[in-house]
Every structure is written in structure tokens, then in C-alpha cells.
């Protein structure tokens, strides 16, 4: 079960209380969107779940396991950043394969997973390109593909549509939801946004 439980989560940056007593239960396969104005703590909450920010107080559990002190690589989480954070010196294929290589996956297994994800997202023709040769929508799909190939328990999306135009954002929002719900593995998804789309 990929259940995410957040209990009494707090984050302070010196005098600023950025996240105040957040409690949240995300069930397996549930798609949750955190909506709020800028500066309300959405990204900070997401970053604490990912392990990129330390927790001032509170607990985060994934599948009944407290992950407060686990490094990001051990949380079985994939994250798509607002600016996609694609590795500029690597091709699309290498961007998607990077996480699997770090986890010592077999080369054939890596190729199969990357091809599968590329087919789902319609980017199989872009695998040899570098990120600078892609449009915004294509980059977003590559970032999504990089998350999908790992088959993580939890997906985190930090304002992934904010850099896209309305039409592209709508298509990408649809494809991101549907491309991950086809997985056989227990998964949960959490997304932050300032807008209602």
C-alpha cells in the first residue's frame, strides 16, 4: 500500500513559520492537489515529503513507515519540479535512464522501461535529443517520463504546468494523471498549484 500520512507537520526557517501543523492522509492511488496562494507552504510541504527539506516537527509516513530521517534516494519517491530540472548535458534517454542507472538496473531492463514510458508519453522520437532542443510541453513529458520509469510509490509534482500555455497545460495535466494510473504498483500522487487547472 502506498499510503502517505502527514501528522502535525511544521517547518520553521528562523523566524518564519512556513508550514503550520499540516495533517493529511493520502490513500493508495489517490490524486491530491494542494491549492493555495504563493508563499502558503505548498512547495515546502512537498519538499519535506521528498526529503529535500528537514522537518522541524511532525511525522511523515509512507506505508506506515516513518521517513523523517530517510535520505531522498531511499524514500521511493519521484518528483517533477516546476522548471523540470532536466539534466542539460544528457539526452532525453539518459535523463530518463539516470535514476535506474543509479539504482544499478540491468541495461536491458533500463531500455525496456524507458521505451515503455516514452511510448506512453509520445516522446519515443525525442530520445536522442538534448533538453534544449525540446519545447516546454516536451520537456514536461520528459520530466514525467523520468519519474514514471522508476515505478515509485509516490509521485510529487511541484507546479509542473506553470510554465506552459493553457492548451498545453490541459493536455499535460490529462496525460500526467492517466499515464501513472496505468501502473500495477501501489502509487499516490500529490501536486501543488496556484491555479485551479
Amino acid at each position, binding site marked *: 500500500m502506498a499510503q502517505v500520512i502527514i501528522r502535525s507537520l511544521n517547518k520553521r526557517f528562523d523566524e518564519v513559520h512556513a508550514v503550520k501543523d499540516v495533517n493529511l492522509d493520502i490513500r493508495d492511488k489517490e490524486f491530491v492537489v494542494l491549492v493555495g496562494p504563493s508563499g502558503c507552504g505548498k512547495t515546502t510541504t512537498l519538499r519535506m515529503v521528498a526529503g529535500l527539506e528537514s522537518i522541524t516537527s511532525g511525522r511523515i509516513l509512507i506505508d506506515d513507515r516513518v521517513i523523517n530521517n530517510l535520505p531522498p534516494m531511499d524514500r521511493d519517491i519521484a518528483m517533477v519540479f516546476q522548471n523540470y*530540472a532536466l539534466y542539460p548535458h544528457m539526452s532525453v534517454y539518459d535523463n530518463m535512464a539516470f535514476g535506474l542507472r543509479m539504482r544499478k538496473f540491468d541495461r536491458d531492463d533500463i531500455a525496456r522501461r524507458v521505451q515503455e514510458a516514452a511510448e506512453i508519453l509520445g516522446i519515443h522520437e525525442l530520445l536522442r535529443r538534448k533538453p534544449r532542443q525540446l519545447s516546454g510541453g516536451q520537456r514536461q513529458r520528459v520530466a514525467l517520463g523520468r519519474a514514471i520509469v522508476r515505478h515509485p510509490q509516490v509521485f510529487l509534482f511541484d507546479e509542473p504546468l506553470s510554465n506552459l500555455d493553457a492548451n498545453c497545460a490541459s493536455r499535460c495535466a490529462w496525460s500526467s494523471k492517466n499515464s501513472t494510473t496505468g501502473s500495477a504498483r501501489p502509487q499516490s500522487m500529490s501536486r501543488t498549484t496556484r491555479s485551479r487547472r
Partner: protein
Amino acid sequence: MIEGASWRRWVFFYIPLTAFIVALLFPFYWMLVTTVRPDGELYRPWNAPNYTPFWTMHPTLEHIKDLLTETLFGTWMFNTMVISIAATAISLFCGLLAGYALSRLKFPFAGSLGTMIFITYLVPQTLLFIPLADIIRNFRLGDSPWALILTYPTFLIPFCTWLMMGYFKSIPKELEECARIDGATRWRAMVYIIFPIAVPGILSAGIFAFTLSWNEFIYALVFLSSPDQKTVPVGVTSELVRGDVFYWGELMAGALLGSIPVAFVYSFFVEHYVASLTGSVKG
């Protein structure tokens, strides 16, 4: 480009540009002309009727031949190359790791430490060579390449660290965070993600370190004494200036040939060098 009348372009662009280029390149031209000018013309008085300071009608390669056969110039070039490459490698290695730590890691007094490292760069070499000479003597490293290989990093590492700090700060931290979520340790994220992106900055720091090492004079003069251990700057000036006799032809030939490796390095990497100074990485 200057818009408007043609005279404005000449007055505000072409003439100043020409003057700047002439002033910049004239020393190299003078070096070249002196290298190929025969001795008879070199030592001709300025008020002689056939005095032609800016060109020669009888170029010769005698000075270059004498430099290569009568002196240990080949050995000096080899020594300078080995010392510069080794000192650059050590400084780049330390500067990369220190620059990454100071710009990416959060630990107490990181800012103060970075400032202190930079301040050490401001201490003049003409002051530092005195205590360093004592250390070199105690460790019996005098008159050997190791005296320079181990002392040059004292001013190269602070410079490389400072340069790399600025460059690493321009690389979005999301790239590294994404790598860590993908399963990379901090070391792997640094090696596989940050360093490849920072190659222009690394090349820039390397070029600077190489140039500073190649042209360094005071430490090489103080720590090296045997002719076969000297570097090009020290060898050329100490062996080709005997008392009050200046062998100008050989001196200029040594300066010309000694500047070729640095010009070679710059010409290959100048695009990366300029990019690292003027641009920034966009995620």
C-alpha cells in the same frame, strides 16, 4: 554599432579600435621583429642613417637556433610544462571540491571560510616567499620541481575556489536535488551532474591556473638555482642577461617561444573561457 554619419563611426569606433589593437599587439610584433633581426641591426645606434626599428630587411633564425642549441631552453620548457600542469591539476582538484562545499553545503561558518580563502589570495607573493623559503629548506625541496609544484597552489587554490564557487552558484540546485531523488548520493550527483555542467567554469579556472603557473617568476627565482631545474621565465632572464650584456635576440626568441603554449591553450578554449565569465547556466 555607431549610427549616423560616417565620420562618427570613424571617430568613435574605427580609430579607437585601431589604436587599441595596435597598442595591444605591438609588444608581440616587436618581440617577433627582434627575434628575427640580425645582431648588426639589433645593436645599431638610433641615430644611424639606416636605422629601421620597426622592420628588418634581413631576417634570420640565428637567435632561435642559438637559443635552442646554446642554452637549456628545451629543458626549461619541459620543466615549466610539468610544473604548470601538476600545479594546475592539484589546484583544480582542491578548488573544485572546496568550491562545491562552500557553495552547496550548509555548514557553520561557510561564508566566513569562503571569505578567508579569498583573503589568502590577496597576500602578495613577494611577502609569502620568505616564510615559504624556510619551509622549502626544512623539507629539503629546494632546487627541485616539487618546490614549485607544492607552493604554486598557495595562490592558485584560492583563485580556483573563488571562481568555481561563483560558477556553482549559477547552476540550479534543483538539478542536484532531482539527482538525489533519482538515487544518486551527494558525491555521485556532484560528479555526474554538477561537474559536467560546470565544464566551462572548470576550463576557465584551469586556463587561469595554467597561465599563472607558467608566467610565475618570484618563486621560481628564489626556489630554483641549477640551470637544468629552471623554468622559462627564470632561465631566459638569468642565462641570457650576463652582467650588463643583454642578448636581445635570444631573449625575445625565448619570450616568443615561451608564450606559444599559453597562446595555444587560450586559442582552443577561449569560447568556454568567455562563456564562463559572461554567461550563466540556465536550468
